[in-house]
Structure formats: structure tokens, C-alpha cells
């Protein structure tokens, strides 16, 4: 196929177009554009897709994860063509929220969604998406668009640029053109936004009942079906860039919920050495192959705390691009620990990919905690609170005798808990020369807030 031939060198990009790769004279000074430029263009085009922006570091095309705080921690956003793996918290309370924010961001930006679940009907998942908090400016934009669309009062005759009059009126694009929105977890997304969006659902109990006419390989049937479904959508809706005539490119956001749980037919959460222990890793590999050759980004939530074989978790982490772990305090002794009284859990950024680069944008801040207030989900830099404003050093030197033991206890509590749970970045030399891409200054004792 001619498209494949041009795709051969151009496809598989992760966000920046190596366009004209089929031609000679490829210099490193290329304008960055979206990947999958399997077109017959003569030169690289800087196509802007709603809801994406190029990365500051390497021109990678990024989409927002739905939480601006998380975007910053990941170096600007989630790169197109990559997988974001979320290791679920123990009772699966907070990870669905991240999952839904990702999907809601797709609806707000006008992206196409593909929701796959073995537990809930995707239509129900979409009904429960959080409502976007549109600030006044973008709300005004939205209202104005609606207004202009309804009352064609701009029928003023153009005298000089009369050709432009013949162009169609501006249509309502995505609701907001910003990158990254805030979501109100207590409200539901307006019904008209869902109806205006383009989404595909994969509900495993429905799909698995049909006959399976594929050769047996060691993937569970649910995974095979899901891969075929995803590949179908990518091919039919031209996310792989195979149709150069498509004038407006769009991004496909894939969300897979509870992958690896027994509901998908996989037994890695039940048995230590299951019959097909390679099923999930093969699935991830082929999925990543599909993503790398299309304009899509994927979020997967996985109950890794249930996986018996720890080696598989390491393999899964290696096969995914970005990995985030959520650890909620519910049911653990930290729930009543006064050090953690403001927070609901910890966020661990386990892996950030190095794409098109030798280095990645790792955040210096490793101790991150989240809390779900009534409406908003916030991620903050966690610090050990010092009791009553006295620093540790003065405890040691000037503590009065009779209060020595309670002081020591408090000192131990303050000193040991971070020792146990926080990373040893505490003891490292503090940062020298911060790059401006980080929102806050570092330093162990500064309170910084990532507002989401």
C-alpha cells in the first residue's frame, strides 16, 4: 500500500513528525507536527489539533490528563502514542476519578473516546463523568459562539475581503480551547456534551458472547477482542493517518478500566503462576504498538495490588510508558495518623518515559499526596509537619528535661514516618538551579500546591 510505504518511515513517531523522511535531506531542524504523517505532503505541516500542545522539551505532542496538576508532574501532559498506567488504590475509590477526568477532558476538547470495561457499561461510565469548571472567559466564548451561530447578525457586507463572506460561519468547535481543565467531582457532566461527543464503548460481556474466530494464541479472549476492537476503530476512523484527505485530525482517547482483573478472564490476580501469565504483557505490548502508529493516548487502570506475582508487576511497569500509583490511606494506620490528617492518600510517580530524548522531565518532588475535597481533587507536595513550630534541631538542643520524652516521641514520629515512607530524596543535596518548567520551588520545607 502506498500509504504504508510512506508510513514506513514516518509512522511510529511519537508525536513529532519525521515528515519527508521518505525523501532525502532530513535535517534535525524539522518543524514539529503531529505524528502519523503518512501523507504525501511535500513538507512538514504544523497541524494543531484541539486539546493538544507540543511539549516544551522535545516538541512531543501532548494531551492533558484531565488534572492540570498531574500534567505538570508528567512534564506537561501525556504524550500521544503512549500508555498511562494507573495502579489502583486498594479499594478502587480514587482511581476511577482520574479515569473519568481523562475521559471528561476528551469530551471537553472534542476528542473521540473509546471506553472499555468489563464491569460497567461504558454508557453508564460516561454519565458519571465530572462536570468541567469553565471559568467565565471560556463560558463567555461558548455563549458567544452559540449566539453567533444562532443569530447571523454578522451579515455585514464585506467590501474588501468579500471572498471571506462566502466561507461558512465559524462552527462550534470544542467547548474550550484551553489545555487542561478543572473538574467538579460533585456534579455530572451536562448531557448535551455527551451527546455531542463521538464515543465508542466496549463492554466485555456483550462482546464476548459472539463467536471468536481467531487463532488461539496465549491471550485471553477478552484481550483479543479488545485489541481487535481498538484496531478497528483506529483503522475506520483514520487515526493512523492512512487517509491524507481528512481535513481535521482528531485524537482518540482510549480508557480501559480494571485491566487484569478477573472480570477480563485473566487469572494473574488470582493465581501466582497462572496458565497464561503472559497474556497481559503481550496485550500491553501489542496495544503500545497500536498506539505508536496512531494519534491516540490511552489510560489504563489496573489493580496491581491484587497481582500475586511481583515479577509480573515489574514487567508491566517496563512495558508501559507512564506509571502512576495511588495509595489511599483508607483502612491503613495512616488514616488516623495526625501527620496525614489533611490528605486522603499518596501519589507515586513510578515511571516517566524518555521519548525522543535521552532524559525526561522528572519532577524533583517525590513526596506527593492527594486529597479529594468536596469538589476538587488536589495534589500537593507532602511535608512532615513540624509540631508547634519548633524545628527538629532545637528539640535536640534545648528541649526541657521534663518534656524530654514526649518531645522525643514527637521527634521520632516526625523523623521516622518520613524516613519510612518518603523517598530518600530528603537527604539529597537540595536542588541547584531550578528550571522554570516546574511550578513551585523545591526544597523540602516549602509548601507548594498543585491546584487541580
Amino acid at each position: 500500500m502506498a500509504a504504508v510505504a510512506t508510513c514506513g518511515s514516518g509512522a511510529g513517531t511519537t508525536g513529532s513528525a519525521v515528515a519527508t523522511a521518505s525523501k532525502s535531506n532530513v535535517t534535525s531542524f524539522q518543524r514539529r507536527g503531529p505524528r502519523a504523517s503518512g501523507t504525501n505532503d511535500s513538507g512538514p505541516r504544523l497541524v494543531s489539533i484541539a486539546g493538544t500542545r507540543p511539549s516544551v522539551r522535545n516538541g512531543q505532542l501532548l494531551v492533558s490528563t484531565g488534572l492540570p496538576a498531574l500534567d505538570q508532574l508528567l512534564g506537561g501532559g501525556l504524550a500521544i502514542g503512549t500508555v498511562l498506567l494507573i495502579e489502583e488504590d486498594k479499594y478502587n475509590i480514587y482511581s476511577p476519578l482520574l479515569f473519568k477526568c481523562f475521559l471528561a477532558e476528551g469530551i471537553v476538547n472534542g476528542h473521540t473516546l473509546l471506553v472499555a470495561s468489563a464491569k460497567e457499561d461504558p454508557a453508564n461510565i460516561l454519565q458519571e463523568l465530572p462536570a468541567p469548571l469553565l471559568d467565565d472567559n471560556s463560558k463567555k466564548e461558548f455563549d458567544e459562539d452559540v449566539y453567533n451561530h444562532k443569530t447571523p447578525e454578522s451579515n455585514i457586507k464585506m467590501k474588501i475581503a468579500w471572498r471571506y463572506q462566502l466561507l461558512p460561519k465559524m462552527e462550534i468547535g470544542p467547548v474550550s480551547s484551553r489545555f487542561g481543565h478543572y473538574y467538579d467531582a460533585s456534579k455530572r457532566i451536562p448531557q448535551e456534551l455527551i451527546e455531542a461527543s463521538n464515543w465508542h464503548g466496549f463492554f466485555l460481556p456483550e462482546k464476548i458472547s459472539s463467536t471468536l474466530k481467531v487463532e488461539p494464541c496465549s491471550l485471553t479472549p477478552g484481550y483479543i477482542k479488545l485489541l481487535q476492537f481498538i484496531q478497528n476503530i483506529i483503522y475506520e476512523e483514520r487515526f493512523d493517518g492512512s487517509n491524507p484527505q481528512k481535513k481535521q485530525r482528531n485524537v482518540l482517547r482510549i480508557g480501559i478500566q480494571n485491566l487484569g482483573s478477573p472480570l477480563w478472564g485473566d487469572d494473574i490476580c488470582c493465581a501466582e503462576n497462572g496458565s497464561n501469565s503472559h497474556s497481559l504483557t503481550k496485550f500491553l505490548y501489542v496495544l503500545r504498538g497500536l498506539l505508536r502508529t496512531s494519534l491516540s493516548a490511552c489510560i489504563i487502570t489496573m489493580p496491581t495490588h491484587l497481582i500475586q506475582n511481583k515479577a509480573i508487576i515489574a514487567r508491566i511497569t517496563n512495558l508501559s510508558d507512564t506509571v502512576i500509583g495511588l495509595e489511599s490511606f483508607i483502612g491503613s494506620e495512616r488514616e488516623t495518623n495526625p501527620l496525614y490528617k489533611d490528605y486522603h492518600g499518596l501519589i507515586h510517580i513510578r515511571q516517566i518515559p524518555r521519548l525522543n530524548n535521552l532524559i525526561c522531565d522528572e519532577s524533583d518532588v517525590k513526596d506527593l499526596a492527594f486529597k479529594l475535597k468536596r469538589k476538587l481533587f488536589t495534589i500537593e507536595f507532602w511535608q512532615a509537619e513540624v509540631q508547634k513550630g519548633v524545628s527538629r534541631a532545637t528539640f535536640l538542643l534545648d528541649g526541657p528535661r521534663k518534656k524530654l520524652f514526649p518531645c522525643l516521641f514527637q521527634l521520632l514520629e516526625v523523623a521516622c514516618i518520613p524516613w519510612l515512607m518518603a523517598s530518600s530524596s530528603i537527604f539529597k543535596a537540595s536542588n541547584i538551579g531550578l528550571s522554570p518548567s516546574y511550578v513551585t520551588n523545591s526544597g523540602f520545607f516549602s509548601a507548594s500546591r498543585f491546584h487541580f
Partner: protein
Amino acid sequence: MFVELNNLLNTTPDRAEQGKLTLLCDAKTDGSFLVHHFLSFYLKANCKVCFVALFQSFSHYNIVGQKLGVNLTVARERGQLVFLEGLKSSVDVFFQTQEEPHPLQFLREANAGNLKPLFEFVREALKPVDSGEARWTYPVLLVDDLSVLLSLGMGAVAVLDFIHYCRATVCWELKGNMVILVHDSGDVEDEENDILLNGVSHQSHLILRAEGLATGFCRDVHGQLRILWRRPSQPTAQRDQSLTYQYKIQDKSVSFFAKGMSPAVL
């Protein structure tokens, strides 16, 4: 290629040794910068390179290679580089039946088979072309990375067999070099990975081990590199010479320094 690493290894593209197997392994950090180093090193040394890239896409290696001074697209067109892109090929293999055996045929098989098609692909790619003139100096096989094959269902023994066949062909018969990346799982008891790592370590001449710092994340020192020569070429040299350096990766190069001598600390 990183000039500082060349100095540490005491090689240049012009006078590199032949018939050697180099093992790159990483523990708790990302050792892929070593893969980029060797890829650009051997391309600059005018070798014929067969790159089995299972981990990332072609454009990733291309863009990083351009920062290091080699152009993979041009090399591929010239015939100097034979590139097997694992991610893209796996999609082709998985969704469509192939007529002739594909190097990644094992993806379609239910049981753990063997890596014979992959070996045939490597042998075909690196066999000397009887065109009379010798365009390339010697063949090189680069694999990034081998642990992915374990994740895809191959047994450790099958992968070790594949390495053995490749070594017999590339290193001994064709007098070329091999560079392989294997992840070290460390605390996690991944038995198959340990078997694979031990097996390849015993066969290798040079081991480059990138480790994360034991004390955790540091902004100025990204890790520690251990270099181990296992069978030194000169008979009078000591056995199993080993060196340890710490490194920091920058945008286009990597700087190495002795332990504790990071410029940020001094």
C-alpha cells in the same frame, strides 16, 4: 556516541575490537542511553548494523541518533542499518496472518516456541554480500531489549538459545560484535529474568551496568555505571578489571565522573 564513555572504555570507532559480546544491563534506572551510544558508535565505525528494536519506535532512535550525530534514515537507505521495529511489526503479525515466517512469529503461537525465525532474520541481515567490494567493516547485532522477549511469552532457555546461535554466527563466524540490553529486576524475584541475565553475563566480554543510586533520586547524579571487562585481550592484564563511575545525562551527551566528584557537589 559519548566521547567520555569512549575514553573510559578505551576505544574509538576506528580501532574497536571485534568478536565481542557486550552486555548492557540496568537496575532501577533506565540504561537506554547506552544503547544509543553503541548504535551511533558502530554506525560511525562504518559497520553493518542489525538492530532488533523491541522497545521503542524507529523515530525515537532516529531523533536521539540525530542528537548524537548519526542519521538512521539515511543509514537504513544506504543499507548500513537493518532495523526490525518490534512495536510496528507486532501489530502486523498479530492482526494479519503472514505468508512467510515473520521474525516475531511467536506472538501468534499459544505455546512458548523458539526464536528461530528471529535468528534467521538476523543471519539474513548480517550475512556478507558477495559484491566484491567490502563496504562495511564488520557486522554488529544490537538488541534492545531482551527482557521484552520474556514478557512476550518466550522462555529464558529459548532466549538463551537464540543468543547462543547469534553469538556463534555473528561473533565467531562473521567476526562481528553483539550488544544486548537486559533489565535487571533486582529485588523483584523474576526467576526467568535472572536466568537470562546470568546466562548472558557469563558469555559476555564487557558488561556495562547502569544502576540507580542506592540513596535514591538525585538531580545531579543520575546513576552509577559499572564497567566490567571479563576477558581482557592482553594476557598480561589483570583478570576481570572493573571500574565504577557516576554519570549525569544531559541533552546530547553524558558526563562521567568518579564517585562523589559530581561538579554540583564540588
